[in-house]
Structures are given as C-alpha cells and as structure tokens.
C-alpha cells in the first residue's frame, strides 16, 4: 500500500525523530494519488524544513499539492527557500500565512510585475534612514505603515506607481516621513496648559489617554495625526528640501472612495491634498479651519505637538457627527497610522534596555568608590543579604522630571544622587548617559539605582571570595552561528550555539614524558625553526640606504676613473624579513580519537608548541567537540597571545576524547578570531581523524557541505585553511572540502608528531 510506503519514507527522512503516526498519515494521504516523480521532489524538501520547524514541514506538505498547481517543480525550491526565510525572520505564523495565500503573490513577484519589494531596497534605505535619523532605527515589513519610534514599518511591497523609480521614491518618503514624526516629537506631546493631565503612569503616554478621552477616539486620533503630518511636512521641507522637491512630482492618485457628504471626510480629503501639494495650497486649504495666526504657526514650522493637541477638541467638535458613524479616512501612503500603543511598548523596551546599561555603568562606578563609602551605600544590602537590596526610600535624586524640562538651560549643574545620606557625584560618562536618559524619558526610576547598588554589592562579594570556582570545563560564553544547508542553498539562521569552554588544568607527567621521548627531535626542531625566524639582514648595492656600501663605492669610483658608466647603487640597507603569521590549531576531540590517536595529537601539539616558541609566530590552540547543534563546544587551550606556560601545558595534557565532530561552528569561530588579528598570513590548521559528523542530521553530504562552506567563508576572509587528517578514506571528501592542495594525509598516526612540525614548516616558508 502506498500510504505505508510514504510514511515509511517520511520516518526515514526525519530520523532520529519519531513523529506521531496520525500526523504523518494525515499529511501523507493526499499524496497517494500523486505521481511518483512529483512525490519524490516534494519529499526531498522534508530534510530541509523538518529540522528548522516540524510544524512548518507539516504545513508545507499540506500546501504543496495546491502550490504545485501554480508552481513548476523547478520553482518549488525557491518557494520553500522564501518560506524558510520568512519563518526565520518573522516566525511560524507569518510563514504559514505565506504558504497559504502567497503562491500567486510569490509568482507575480517572481515575474517582476508586482512593483517594488522592500527587501530589494532595504540595504540601500537602512543606512540612509540611519544616517538621516542619526539613530539605529530598524526597517521591518508590515501590513501598515507606522512607527513605534525604534522601528519603521512599511508595506512589504509598493506598486502604487507603474514606474519602480517612483515606487522607490515613495519608500524613501515613507521612511523619511515616519522618522519625521519621531523627530518632531509627535508621540510625546505633553498636556498643554489647561488640559487634563490624566493618570500619569510611568510608561503611558499622555497623548493616548487624551485621544482616548473623546467619544470617538479614531476621529480624534486621525485629526491629531493629520495636524502632525502638516508639521512633519513643513519640517521636512526645511530639513530635506531635495527630497520634498522630488516628491512633489509624484503623481499621487487621490481617489475619494468615501461619501463626500461627510464633513470629516471632506476635511481629511482636502488637507491630504495639501500634504501632497505645495505650501501655498496648504495655506488655502487650512484657512477655513484654523485662525490666520494658527495657520502661520503651522506653516512656518513654529507649531509644537502641544499646538496640534490644543486644536483637536475644536476641530473634533465641528467634524464629529453624532448621527453618522465615522468611517476612518484612509491615510496617504507615507502618513501611515498613529499607533500609540506600539510606541508605548517600544519605549518601555527601550527604557529597560537603557536602564540595564545605566545599571551596569552605575554599578561599575560604585565599585570605584572607596570601601568605606561603598559599605555605607550598601549597608542595607548587607543587613539582610537575602533582601532585594536598598529600599527605594533611601535613594533621593536631584534630577526629577522638572530637571528634564529645564535640562537645556541647566546643563552645567552637576547631577547628584543621595543614597543613605551619602552624596554621590556622577563621572562624565555616566552623567552624559543619564542626561540622555532624562531627555528621553523625563525621569530616572530609582529602581535602576537600587539595582545598580545591588549589583555592585554582588560584585564586591564576588571580589572578596576571589575566583574559588574552578569547575571542570568552565563555560565562558556562548556564540551563535548560522549553518549552511546545501539543499536549500542558504543558511539556517542562528542554527548552532557554540559554547566556549575552558579545559581543566591537569597535573600529569605527560608533557615531561613526551619531551623525554622526543628529546632528540625537539632539539632538531628547535634548530630548524630557529633558522626560519625573522631575520634582519643587510642588503647591499641599494639606491637608498642607511649606510654607504664601500665595495660598491670603490667599484663605482674606479669605473668613473676608467671612463665607464658608474653605478648609483652605493648604499647598504637593513632589511627585515618579518614573519607575520598567526595560526590557529583546531584539534578534533571527538570520541573516535580515543586511544593512540589522542596521544599522538597531544604529542604533536607539545612538539609544535616547543618549536613555535622558538619561531615566534603567534599561535592558538583550541579543541572542539559537542553534541547536536545546541551544544557545540570549543575548548580553549591557548589563545593567540597567551604565552606557552605551565597552564597551557596542563591544558594540553587534559585534551581527551569527548563527543562528536561538528566542524562548521569551530571553523567559523576560528575565522572570527583570526579576523580580529592583523597578520600577513593567517592560518587555520585542523587536526582530525575523520569526517565531520554529529548526533543529529549533521552527517554525510550535509556535514561535508557545511564544513566546506565554513572553509570558504574563511578563505573569503583572507584566511588559509589547512587540514591534517589520519582518516584512510580522507581522499574522497577532503579534496572537496579543503581544495586539492590544502590537506595532508598522515598514514601512520605514530608518525604524526614527527610530521606535523615538518608540515608547518613547508606551509609557512
């Protein structure tokens, strides 16, 4: 029966996972009727999608038959690739939505008839907007245009105009305009005089409470937004006249789809016309609604967000119609929507982020204080060490919201904070950061100061204890890397997490024994490597130099005497042949290296290090192993700049077989480390005993292709990868991974310690 065969195939493709039988049967059932060739092509995608997301894989199988009605088999991989990219950027929901309703859209985009995609202009517009805004803003595709003050949202695609140049200009205008709202402070309007304050909770915006207080909040919101759009337009005319000039030529279709009898709609339609036209039009259009002085203020760019807020009630009362529902008037594409809730959320996130930075800075400052002062500040902390630290009442600050408002006039006044009656002045860095915070948020919550004090307290305690922790394989951090999926011809984003660990130091006679065993060889190696060391030598007969080359001079003089043309190469120059080499050794610590292989690897490292010390090249040693993508491990043995001392020797002794061989992440990390180093020649030398392989699907072609890709990345970064292997079957795949001349096969593992320095010597001279 075909269903059983299909399910069987599915299980083999997703092994070692064992998904629910009914799930598998449900998604496989539609394929019973499908012809074998199509089935095969569809199933080929399972190993690509399954490891990224099981749900997405099921969805793919559900949608694939439908999608194949529109797509050819050749187009399927691209469609899957796009879906995976969406999943990695925007999550499962968006990817599912894409698969469900995106086939036509996807096709039209493939044909290039769908206008201009944000993705295609993002790389150009992101630095543009960041430069304009002088801030690290983000650009994100969304259904509507709006901003939350840290991210600018715009439609994924624009096809308003037939000409993509005009569509691009519209994108540019959208982002510039949205930034304009931020720059003009549209979201941060404070209560104008005589207006209700509403409950002023820490993170809520006055403006939102104000606009919500109307019986019809959407109308009030749209009025305010329109007035602010006028302010932004005037601001941009002044700030970026070139852009506004170009934009004024855009043929905005001003279709008026709504019943024009409605007063509000008439108002919005007419002012919107003004927004796309020039200033004089705007004046005529505003006149019926505002007093001449108000018009002047707006058109001369003197109006503030408070002015807009002040006008809202009056315009609202004339435009609001109790008998008729207000159907929100569609905004112009660049205006977008006013989303104050998103602004509140974004500001909250921003505040916490800045708060954390503040806590770090402040805690660091606390720790620079004198012990006595610090103890005094932290005395509550010590009294009840289990408590949450200082009580907020103990902290008082001479920087409240009042300060923030007068900040401009009073920049010179130093910031002071009093904690437990201990007065504390801010160092310049902290002070400028705090001022930035106050400018942005009005006041600094005391909880940040108390948590800084708490943190400093912890730091002090830790300082007292002083590095007692010396656990095995102490972890020192985690780095995340992408992984190459050759079937997808793209990266699996943030796929592997590489844990950086310290190898424990082991006291053992290993090093001494090795040095005894290879005593003669070590001496010979030292001698050989000494010969390679950078040398200063005099080069004679130079046109320029530090000293006169007397031989050449005498020759030249006698030539002149003899009436022959004399040489002008009369100088000696001191030339330095610098060996400017940095090399990283990556040692395979997989389980298969146990026994003789491991000993040979370690012995080679010892001999190498002894020789390298004479040579003076910078070198680092790292071991790698791990299991599954979530726990790749890189063990530090020796950093590039570390000296070869007892600690390094002890760490070499403790290199031992561990788990699997996922080569991609360690190579990518080594590449990153070497990229930070300035050296003429940079090398990664991998010592391994076999193919890259991990417990999960990191096997066979996938593993080889990912490793190959990691090595390609290294080459692109100007780093030469080289591999020393003892795998008998190495020739099959090594050439593919490293390239024909970049690996060497050592057939007898016992010879490795002898061969390795030799290999290094030929490699670098």
């Amino acid at each position, binding site marked *: 029966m075909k269903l059983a065969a299909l399910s069987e195939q599915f299980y083999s493709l997703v092994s070692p996972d064992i998904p629910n039988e009914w799930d598998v049967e449900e998604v496989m059932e539609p394929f019973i009727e499908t012809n074998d060739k199509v089935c095969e092509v569809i199933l080929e995608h399972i190993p690509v999608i399954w490891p990224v997301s099981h749900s997405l894989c099921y969805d793919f199988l559900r949608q694939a038959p439908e999608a194949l009605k529109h797509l050819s088999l050749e187009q399927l991989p691209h469609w899957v690739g796009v879906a995976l990219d969406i999943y990695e950027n925007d999550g499962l929901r968006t990817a599912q939505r894409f698969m469900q309703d995106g086939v036509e859209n996807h096709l039209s985009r493939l044909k290039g008839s769908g206008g201009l995609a944000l993705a295609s202009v993002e*790389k*150009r517009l*992101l630095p*543009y907007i*960041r430069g304009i805004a002088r801030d690290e803003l983000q650009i994100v595709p969304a259904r509507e245009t709006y901003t939350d003050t840290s991210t600018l949202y715009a439609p994924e695609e624009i096809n308003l105009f037939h000409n993509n140049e005009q569509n691009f200009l519209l994108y540019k205008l959208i982002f510039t305009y949205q930034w304009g709202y931020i720059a003009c402070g549209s979201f941060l309007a404070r209560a104008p005089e005589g207006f209700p304050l509403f409950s002023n909770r820490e993170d809520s915006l006055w403006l939102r409470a104000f606009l919500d207080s109307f019986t019809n909040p959407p109308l009030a919101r749209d009025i305010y937004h329109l007035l602010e759009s006028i302010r932004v337009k005037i601001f941009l005319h002044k700030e970026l006249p*070139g*852009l506004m000039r170009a934009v004024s030529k855009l043929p905005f279709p001003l279709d008026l789809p709504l019943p024009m009898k409605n007063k509000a709609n008439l108002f919005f339609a007419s002012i919107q016309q003004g927004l796309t036209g020039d200033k004089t039009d705007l004046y005529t259009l505003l006149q019926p609604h505002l007093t001449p002085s108000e018009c002047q203020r707006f058109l001369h760019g003197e109006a503030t967000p408070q002015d807009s807020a002040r006008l809202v009630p009056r315009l609202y009362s004339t435009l609001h119609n109790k008998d008729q529902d207000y159907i929100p008037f569609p905004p112009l594409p660049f205006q977008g929507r006013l989303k104050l809730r998103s602004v509140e959320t974004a500001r909250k996130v921003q505040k916490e982020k800045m708060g954390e930075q503040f806590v770090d800075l402040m805690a660091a400052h606390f720790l620079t204080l004198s012990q006595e002062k610090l103890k005094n500040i932290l005395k509550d902390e010590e009294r009840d060490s289990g408590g949450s630290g200082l009580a907020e009442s103990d902290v008082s600050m001479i920087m409240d919201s009042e300060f923030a408002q007068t900040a401009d006039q009073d920049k010179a006044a130093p910031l002071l904070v009093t904690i437990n009656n201990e007065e504390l002045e801010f160092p310049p860095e902290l002070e400028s950061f705090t001022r930035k915070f106050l400018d942005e948020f009005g006041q600094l919550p005391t909880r940040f100061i108390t948590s800084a004090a708490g943190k400093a307290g912890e730091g002090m305690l830790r300082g007292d204890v002083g590095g007692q922790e010396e656990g095995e394989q102490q972890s020192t951090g985690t780095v995340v890397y992408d992984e190459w999926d050759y079937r997808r011809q793209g990266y699996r984003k943030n796929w592997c997490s590489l844990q950086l660990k310290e190898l424990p130091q082991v006291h053992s006679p290993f090093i001494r024994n090795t040095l005894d065993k290879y005593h003669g060889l070590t001496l010979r190696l030292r001698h050989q490597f000494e010969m390679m060391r950078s040398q200063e030598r005099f080069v004679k007969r130079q046109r320029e130099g*530090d000293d006169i080359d007397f031989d050449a*001079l005498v020759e030249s003089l006698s030539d002149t005497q003899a009436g022959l043309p004399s040489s002008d190469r009369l100088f000696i120059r001191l030339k330095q042949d610098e060996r400017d080499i940095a090399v990283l050794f990556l040692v395979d610590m997989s389980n298969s290296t146990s026994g003789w292989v491991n000993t040979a690897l370690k012995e080679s490292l010892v001999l190498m290090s002894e020789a390298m010390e004479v040579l003076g090249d910078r070198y680092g040693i790292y071991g790698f192993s791990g299991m599954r993508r979530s726990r790749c491990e890189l063990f530090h043995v020796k950093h590039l700049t570390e000296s070869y001392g007892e600690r390094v020797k002890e760490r070499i002794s403790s290199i031992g077989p561990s788990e699997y061989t996922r080569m991609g992440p360690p190579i990518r990390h080594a590449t990153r480390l070497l990229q930070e180093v*300035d050296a003429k020649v940079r090398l990664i030398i991998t010592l391994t005993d076999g193919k890259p392989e991990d417990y999960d699907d990191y096997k066979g072609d996938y593993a080889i292709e990912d490793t190959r890709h990691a090595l390609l990345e290294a080459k692109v970064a100007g780093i030469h990868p080289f591999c020393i292997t003892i795998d008998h079957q190495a020739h099959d795949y090594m050439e593919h991974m490293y390239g024909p001349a970049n690996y060497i096969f050592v057939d007898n593992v016992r010879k490795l310690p002898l061969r390795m320095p030799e290999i290094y010597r030929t490699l670098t001279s």
Partner: protein
Amino acid sequence: MKTVEQRLEEHLITAEPYYLVSGTEIEIALSAYKNGLPLLLKGPTGCGKTRFMQYLAWKLQRPLITVSCHDDLSTSDLVGRYLIRSGEAVWIDGPLTLAVRAGAICYLDEIVEARKDTTVVIHPLADDRRELPVEKLGELLTAPPEFMISVSYNPGYQSVLKDLKPSTRQRFVAISFDYPLPDQEVEIVCQEGGVEKELAHSLVKLAGMTRSLKESGLAEGASTRLLIQAGKLTQDGIDIHTACRVAIIEPLSDDPELLAALQEMVSSIF
C-alpha cells in the same frame, strides 16, 4: 645646493592660516611651547590637526617641518644620512636634525604608521633632556628653547597593533581634536570653501549624517576637509549633486549599497 637657511625658509609660514579656535587648544599649545613640552594631537582624519599646527607655527613664527610617517620610515630618514656626491661622502641632515639645529617645529604626522623602533628615536627629544644623538656624526645635539616636537595620530581607525607604545605616549601633552561643532563647522566651510552660509549648512548636515553611520559599516564619516573640497568644486560651477558625489561620497566608501544610501542623503538634502 641649498643652504640650511634656504631650506628652513621654505618651511616658514608667512600668511596667517585660517583656523577657528574651538576651545583652549591654543593656550595649551603655547604653554607647552613655553615649557619645552612635546605635543600629541589626536583626532579623526581631516578635522584640522595639521591646520592647527600650521596656525601654531605661524603664531610662534617658527618654521614648521612636517614628516608624513609611513611603515618604511627608518631612523636615518628622520636623523640624516651620508650621500655620495661627486665621489665624496656628504652628510645630509634629516628633517628632525634640521629642526633641532634650527629651533623649528617638527611635526610627525600619523606617527603610529611609523615602525616602533623608529619612533624610539624621538624619546630623548621628547623629555626633559631635549637632545638628539646623531650616532653617525658622533654628535649630541641639544635642542634650543625654540624647538618643539609634535606628533599626531588618529585613534579611530588604527588597529590595536598600531597603537603608540606607552613609553612614547607618556611624554606628551595631549590635545584631543574632534569635528568642530555644527555652527563652527559651517563657518569654516564658508570661509575655506568659499560658499554661501546656506549651502555650508547643508553640507555640514550631510557630514553629520555620514558620521552617524559608523555602526552601518562606514569607518569614518565625512571630514571637514571633504566638505571644503565639495564647496570649492561648486564654486567652479560644478553642480552640487556631482560635487557631493565626487568630493564626499565616493571618497568615503567603495561599498555599492552604502554609496547608494549616501547618494540618497545627498538627493534628499539638496
């Protein structure tokens, strides 16, 4: 062959160079000069370090001998060497020796570019000994009070490896330079580039935008020098968009996407 006096004459600055004072840098430099202390100028490319030295030299009426350092600069390039002239070995003073003998100001531009062993030669000159041993001549020159040594470097783009040695560093009075404040920069661009205030204002705005692009992959933003050059081009009738492209944008980056983004800024501003 030119005499030493003639050679020095060439280094004397006669006309007042344009320099807009932005703080206490002049007082500090004058005081350092009076006390025989060496100067270290730090700051990004094209922000006015060299111009400051010219101004200082003019103010003190001393010749200014500038050496642009590079990684092949040897000690003899600074101190001097024997040359063969018509069969005879002739000693030629290097710029440093020349400056010491004549009591001039010696300015080593981009000092970190020079090899570390070369920079050591200035050590005895840059502390209270104020002397320069010229080994090949067997002479020990003591600097006259008019002599001053100053060095400059850009802490922004140089790698850690090209840092100054602490032993070199800790001899100097350091003055930190940055791009001038917007209003001052407008004035400088007006004056030097010969452009209208409004145009200068827009150029400075553009520079400000490029300077905030560090995180997006631009090593350094547009310097005041580039703005002045763009201004000068427009004075010769070159269209402002073209002037900005050739004088500001293209020199900043080779990355096509960044160039496009910078071009968008230009088209927005002008």
